[in-house]
């Protein structure tokens, strides 16, 4: 389109495009609705209800000087890495509550951190707009910051990062509205993912056989599924009423859950291409900051901004339990790799292990 053409009638072209877009959207919703022959809770009627649910705090990890923003488990099922607003990233053996490593980042608000699959490194980033990888040295005297590798460079804050199946690649999402895949050794960008209209807040890798997709959620209320090879957005879902803070795949990889500022968690099925469940209650007013499934996918844990953790029965759609303990908003929540416990991090400076 010639620049002149655009300049002379920009509003006309935009209006026609807008109407076309709206019409297609309505058609799409109609098509999606055609195959929706049953609700999840109807299918779940024949299942036994879950009994009394008792989960307690089994460990409290104290040591951060400010709000805990993110955490991740190590594949060894007991170590975790956590990052905080004061710029510190700490690696803990959560089982003994010992701190094993600590890194001070050159920026505050370290909003993303991830443990490498090998357990030999951690990645983190935040307001520095970068994602850096720190190899974990066992030499107590060594300054971890010295061996740091700057991998990702965004033009706005880093909101989430995770390693793919190896230590060699990192997937990041940023406040600049994009996600990107990076090669750790060279720092080269392998693929970028454009499509969100606002900050991207979270992402999760699919546990599928072919391992080539991931889902991201953003401030544009959209959750998008991406093909890592081509950079294309394969599917997108827009039913939330506010920012999506967290996305997590259902263990089979056929669906994913999302948690949002609109105080609901929702389940989206990828094959049916629609939202299939909403987890909400009138009494839950504050937004969900993070969600994760139990190993079997029957339970969905949600950390909320009202300091609580709600446990949902994924199939029946009901709340099974509410966990109290944190003294400020819950900012991050992950179930351990073998499903024996989950860890929650909070603005009250602590992390708790629940089992």
């Amino acid at each position: 389109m010639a620049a002149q053409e655009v300049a002379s009638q920009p509003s006309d072209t935009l209006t026609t495009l807008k109407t076309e877009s709206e019409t297609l959207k309505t058609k799409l919703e109609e098509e999606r609705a055609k195959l929706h022959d049953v609700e999840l809770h109807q299918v779940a009627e024949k299942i036994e209800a879950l009994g009394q649910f008792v989960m307690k705090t089994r460990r409290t990890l104290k040591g951060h000087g400010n709000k805990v923003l993110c955490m991740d488990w190590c594949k060894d099922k007991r170590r975790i890495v956590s990052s905080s607003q004061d710029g510190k990233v700490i690696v803990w053996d959560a089982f003994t509550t010992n701190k094993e490593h600590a890194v001070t980042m050159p920026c505050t608000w370290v909003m993303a951190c991830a443990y490498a699959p090998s357990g030999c490194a951690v990645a983190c980033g935040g307001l520095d707009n970068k994602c850096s990888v720190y190899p974990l040295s066992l030499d107590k005297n060594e300054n971890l910051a010295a061996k740091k590798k700057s991998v990702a460079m965004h033009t706005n804050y880093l909101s989430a990062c995770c390693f793919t199946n190896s230590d060699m690649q990192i997937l990041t999402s940023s406040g600049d509205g994009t996600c990107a895949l990076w090669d750790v050794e060279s720092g080269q960008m392998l693929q970028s993912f454009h499509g969100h209209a606002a900050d991207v807040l979270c992402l999760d890798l699919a546990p599928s056989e072919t391992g080539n997709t991931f889902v991201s959620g953003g401030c544009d209320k959209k959750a998008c599924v991406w093909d890592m090879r081509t950079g294309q957005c394969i599917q997108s879902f827009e039913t939330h009423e506010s920012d999506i803070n967290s996305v997590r795949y259902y263990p089979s990889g056929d669906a994913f859950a999302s948690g949002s500022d609109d105080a609901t968690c929702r389940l989206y099925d990828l094959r049916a291409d629609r939202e299939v469940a909403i987890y909400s209650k009138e009494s839950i007013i504050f937004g969900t900051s993070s969600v994760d499934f139990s190993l079997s996918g029957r339970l969905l844990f949600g950390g909320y901004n009202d300091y609580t953790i709600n446990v949902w029965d994924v199939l029946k759609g009901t709340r099974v339990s509410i966990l109290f303990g944190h003294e400020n908003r819950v900012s991050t929540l992950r179930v351990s790799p073998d499903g024996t416990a989950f860890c929650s991090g909070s603005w009250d400076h602590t992390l708790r292990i629940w089992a």
Partner: protein
Amino acid sequence: MTINTLSQDGVQRQQMPCLTKMERMIISMQDPDMGIKLRNQRLLITVIPHKCSISDEEALHVGQLFVKYGYIYPLKEPRNLILKADDSSYRFQTPYYWMSTRWPASELDYAIYLAKKNIRKQGELIEYEKECYNALHKRINHTWDFVVMQAREQLRASKQRRKGDRIVLECQEQAYWLVNRPPVSPEHYKLTTLTKNTIIEHNRISLARNRVKSSICLESYVKYCEQYQPHDPIMQGCLPSNPWITDDIMFWNMNSETVALPTKLRVERWSFSFMELLNDQMGRKEFLTYLEKEFSAENLCFWQACEDVRHGETAKIPEKVDEVYKQFLAPGASRWVNIDSKTMEKTLEGLKRPHRFVLDDAQMHIYFLMKKDSYPRYLKSELYKNLLARAIVPQETKKSVFPFMRRQRHSSPSPALATQTAEDDGKAKDESR
């Protein structure tokens, strides 16, 4: 919630330290003794180390930030908010218009400014300003009388000032609005139409997608949850006990990669899906043993080698792909894999320019071959059945009778150490050769 959309206060709280710092520097730059050289009539700055330690590049960069945030504004090309390292003229912005004092720039003020301009220039506003003016007129129509009245009042007041002062004030105001309401370029329209086109394309593709009935999808969740429930420690507990509850790490020890005899649950899980078998290192080893008996072990090895290419270092891809070709794909290769001719042709063609995904088609072919053929036979094999029969069902450890006597929580070797030792061993082996 994102940092960027924290309450208005929040953003200002975050920006304030930067702004305060900038303002400190600006003030010191205007110090009559130590500051920048100013020239009469027009205040001028040249590039600027006011500390010896700052390089010219850094000074220029800091200067750019000053211009971007409106503390200094250019006189010659007011719309071009950059700092040039020549003798173009700039002026310091009056503190009245500093970002820290006048943030956020209100719609009302902008409307008044545009109204003034409109009156002065008798309707000759620039394109984007015209758009903004019309949009504002629509949005705050209820106070429009006030806007026009204020505009007229301010114009009248300014006429009574000295010409020099009037010009400076106009420049200052214009600079302030150029920073706080940057012009929208024709590129923006292009971008918006482009984005809209992409969305339309995306929706068209979505419409054409094959969907599955909800009933089928939802049933699959029920099945999955049912199948995995015995394996979910939070739902059904785990044997001998959940380490987090009893402080006993037997559960982890019994399920480690190198244990002699696996647990029954673990072996059962391998039968849930091919992915489960491959994801467990022990399962993978067992499967390899089985394949060796069937003389098709090269399939699994090929699949593993492809995974290594896909997830490995970018720099090593060409050499890895070459290795794979030599071992698995070349005619007469020692571990030749049986791929259909079409895929083989395509792969060999792609090998001329090796990239991360060049082996994907071949890998997928072999994966599905194993999944449909070898895997089901493995599950029926004596090897698997024997292992399942011998597998352990751990005894439940009750929680300690005396709850206040906590078991000692043993630490475990860090995974980082494990790799280091392996590397050291590897090195020692190499050296001893």
